[in-house]
């Protein structure tokens, strides 16, 4: 229950990694991202380095615009790195991978397809036929309580329901790594709490490595095994903390003193990160 292994980061030093580099599944090495715009170069991500062990749920927490989504895009192969490299599973990331799952801030379902077809869409693209995955789609939709909506169209669902479908879609191909970019930011507070509980449940079932981008401290602490705090742009990882609350995580955890202390602690670190840039 106690917060362990607090590692203090100085913004200019490379992170002293919590994870032993040789064991890591994900290795982010001295990554920088510069956007070349008409108004000049914008350094979104300054110098980020960390390792992630297989099976960990890692949140990247930071204020809006700090480049955390950019970091996830680079890890997922959707953006190129300006310098440095990202190695996942022993191979450098150059493009999106078949064993990744993606969940974006907008559910982005195909509006003319049913819920079931949307969940099976990645399989459709990869294999042509989806027969072998019908069972898995059913399992996933059951888990999020949407099996009876399988033949509905996205416009008939609420925002929270659409995002649940998007999560099922992200898990359909049994990915080794799940990348989620602020998936609940567009939802209202109550839906967001529901989704956090649902994701924690799913996590217990389908234990994968996950990178979860958010600007909500409570969300990050509730869901994760580890929280990386990003500073403001040009951003670095300014804090890195292990979250050792026992699993399965239940909503009641958020009432405990330890939980709120950790949240307060992280809030201070975010403020420090804001001042440093």
């Amino acid at each position, binding site marked *: 229950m106690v917060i362990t292994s607090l590692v203090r980061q100085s913004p200019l030093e490379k992170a002293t990694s919590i994870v032993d580099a040789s064991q890591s599944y994900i290795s982010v090495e001295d990554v920088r991202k510069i956007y070349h715009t008409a108004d000049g170069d914008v350094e979104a991500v300054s110098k980020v380095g960390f390792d992630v062990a297989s099976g960990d749920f890692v949140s990247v927490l930071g204020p809006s615009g700090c480049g955390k989504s950019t970091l996830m895009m680079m890890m997922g192969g959707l953006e190129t790195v300006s310098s440095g490299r990202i190695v996942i599973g022993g191979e450098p990331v150059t493009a999106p991978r078949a064993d990744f799952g993606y969940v974006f801030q907008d559910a982005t379902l*195909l509006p*003319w397809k049913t819920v079931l077809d949307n969940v099976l869409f990645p399989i459709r*693209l990869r294999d042509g036929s989806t027969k072998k995955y019908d069972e898995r789609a059913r399992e996933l939709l059951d888990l999020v309580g949407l099996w009876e909506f399988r033949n509905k169209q996205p416009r008939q669902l609420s925002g929270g329901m659409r995002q649940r479908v998007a999560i099922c879609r992200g898990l359909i191909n049994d990915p080794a790594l799940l990348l989620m970019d602020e998936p609940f930011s567009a939802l209202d507070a109550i839906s967001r709490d529901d989704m956090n509980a649902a994701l924690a449940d799913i996590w217990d079932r389908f234990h994968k490595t996950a990178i979860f981008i958010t600007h909500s401290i409570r969300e990050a602490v509730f869901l994760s095994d580890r929280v990386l705090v990003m500073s403001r742009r040009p951003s670095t990882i300014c804090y890195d903390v292990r979250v050792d609350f026992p699993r399965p995580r239940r909503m009641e955890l958020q009432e405990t003193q330890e939980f709120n202390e950790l949240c307060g602690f992280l809030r201070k670190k975010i403020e420090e990160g804001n001042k440093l840039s």
Partner: protein
Amino acid sequence: MARVQSQMLQQAGSTSTAAPKPSAGWKSGISMRAIVLPALTAALLLASWEIAIPLLGIPHALLPPPSAIAARLGQLFFPLILKHAIPTILESLAAFIISSILGVVLAGALSSSKAVREALYPNVVFFQLIPKIALAPLFIVWFGIGSESRVAFSIFISFFPVVIATLAGLDNVDRELLRLCKALRASEWQVFRHVRAPFAIPYMFSGMKIATTFSIIGIIVGEFVTSQAGLGYLILFASAQAETELIFAAIAVLCAFGLVFYGLVALAESTLRKKLDA
């Protein structure tokens, strides 16, 4: 005359009282209203037209009442009008089919290559803005006075809406959807087949619905100029003989054809959408 008038009034009156009022307990209330209300309005307009002619003393050669038009239509449909309707219908359909195919293919080509797009699209828009009807005689010069020139002209004026509408659909795909496809490692063809094409279909059909009207206009204008056969020719012929009732009868048949044509395209749209959703 008075008896005819009162009969018409009675008919108009009975039409309006015979129409059922949509009520709360009626399940199909809304869809019935969508049909009944405009039908009622049309009936009222026709009735006013019918009454106004004798009431205002308008000569039939200037503006015949609906009853006279209907009578002429019944009298001349099989012996004369149908014979001329057939070439118009066939040529309009041919022009529509060719211009739809050409339009969709061109839109596909424009959307697939940025260079092609930048080179051709401004020219397409420029051509769209030319008053193309004025070019009809030019087509006679190029293609002669046969059906080729009429169909070519009709294609010329009706394929632009298809290109522009379809291109708008292919281009306006949600960027988030495209990013999703990139994340799922979809090929260009897969993105087209699964995302761009289904997204563009409603746009394409709205362009095609416009093209139905333009393809008919193109053939009619062609018939005005070449004066051989068809409903356009019939209208010219009738106006030369001051047979206004025949003009209106021909127009009525043309309208009926236009409606059926549009309805067929709408039917094709809903069928295709259902098929693609599978």
